[in-house]
């Protein structure tokens, strides 16, 4: 039992850690942007009159929420090419993360929309505003303000789950750790450092989002 922890050997890799963290953040940002836009569309569809469209979105949400992210990612990266859809690892990672985040965010945005009082919509329509514009400028801002904290949590969960994309050779933070530990044979120290980096990223993101949320929704959130 003479194992000595040694973190000194990791200092030389600090550049690699930073690059990995940048890739992780980039993937998260891409998935969050696409996912938020798509989920607003999805939540709006859930309120539409088209029963088949509502059914389709509901089925999508159920399917994604009841299967693991890693299986979705493998399906996208290994399975879709057999249908002729070829993509790079990064594209597959962003696509899988977006598909996953969208399903959860649809539920969140839907809850936010339901929490907006009916009178808001009626007042907008009574002023002669077109229904689509009422949705965009009256309902949606209030709905997003209602569920902003939940959306932020979901984006952070997506970032943490993105550790799995290292398995399809995307050079994210976890992949960097895999690489380094295969060189210095100190997996525990390497993964410990990377875990701490993830934790720091989580804390920073949460703070940033909380601050920008206060600016974005000043005086709006209940």
């Amino acid at each position, binding site marked *: 039992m003479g194992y000595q922890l040694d973190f000194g050997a990791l200092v030389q890799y600090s550049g690699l850690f930073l690059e990995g963290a940048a890739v992780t953040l980039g993937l998260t940002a891409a998935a969050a942007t696409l996912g938020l836009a798509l989920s607003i569309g999805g939540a709006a569809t859930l309120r539409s009159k088209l029963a088949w469209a509502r059914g389709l979105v509901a089925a999508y949400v159920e399917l994604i929420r009841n299967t*693991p992210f890693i299986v979705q990612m493998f399906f996208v990266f290994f399975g879709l090419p057999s249908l002729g859809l070829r993509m790079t690892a990064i594209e597959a990672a962003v696509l899988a993360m977006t598909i996953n985040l969208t399903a959860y965010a649809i539920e969140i945005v839907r809850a936010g929309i339901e929490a907006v009082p009916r009178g808001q919509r009626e007042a907008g329509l009574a002023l002669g505003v077109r229904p689509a514009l009422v949705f965009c400028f009256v309902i949606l801002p209030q709905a997003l303000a209602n569920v902003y904290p939940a959306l932020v949590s979901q984006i952070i969960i997506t970032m943490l789950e993105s550790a799995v994309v290292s398995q399809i050779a995307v050079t994210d933070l976890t992949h960097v750790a895999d690489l380094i530990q295969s060189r210095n044979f100190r997996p525990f120290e390497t993964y410990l450092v990377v875990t701490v980096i993830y934790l720091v990223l989580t804390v920073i993101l949460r703070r940033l989002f909380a601050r920008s949320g206060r600016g974005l929704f000043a005086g709006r959130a209940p």
Partner: protein
Amino acid sequence: MISFTLWDLARNLGLAARWTLLLSALAFSGGGLFGLALLALRYWGSGRATRAIKIYVEVLQGTPLLMQLFLVFFGLPLLGIDVSALLASAVALTLYASAYLTEIWRGCVDAVPRGQWQASASLGLGYFHQMRYVILPQALRIAVPPTVGFLVQLVKSTALTSIVGFNELTKTGEILTNATFEPFRVYGVVALIYFALCYPLTSCSRALERRLRIAG
């Protein structure tokens, strides 16, 4: 390349799903017991214990499960413990589940209205009896839907253990893909099996929640 009929695929993956279920059961029972202990410590322990538990939850919810899995998998051997993939996975998932469950249950205990505490105190009940006869029975009722909901998350999380080489559903899917070169079909069936495991739990959680809202 070996050719598998759909039935062969489904049968092999179905057999592998037993390991997914076993691991989920281990992690849920272990995490539940440990989470309950943490909950008790949080309410009966000192301020320092409460703070420590808060940090514990914060760390486990703020880092990827994959990293926790790696740390257990590579960390236990440093302590001189020989770990199998199953043991490492069970330990990591237990810790992960305990953090989430203790936080969920704390929310449920806190959700019991303050008036209940005051009313029971005015009846002369001590802290233990307040908890035992007034607060916990009510908290338990609120706790069931989110706990079942977390169980879904836990079943899905077991898929990550394929990365440390535990031969459950996802790992078997990988192996079958390598043998058949049919990732679309194999991962399709894998996803369907996970769905079949999780969807009943999801709808159960939702139904319980709805009933609670009507009764509450």
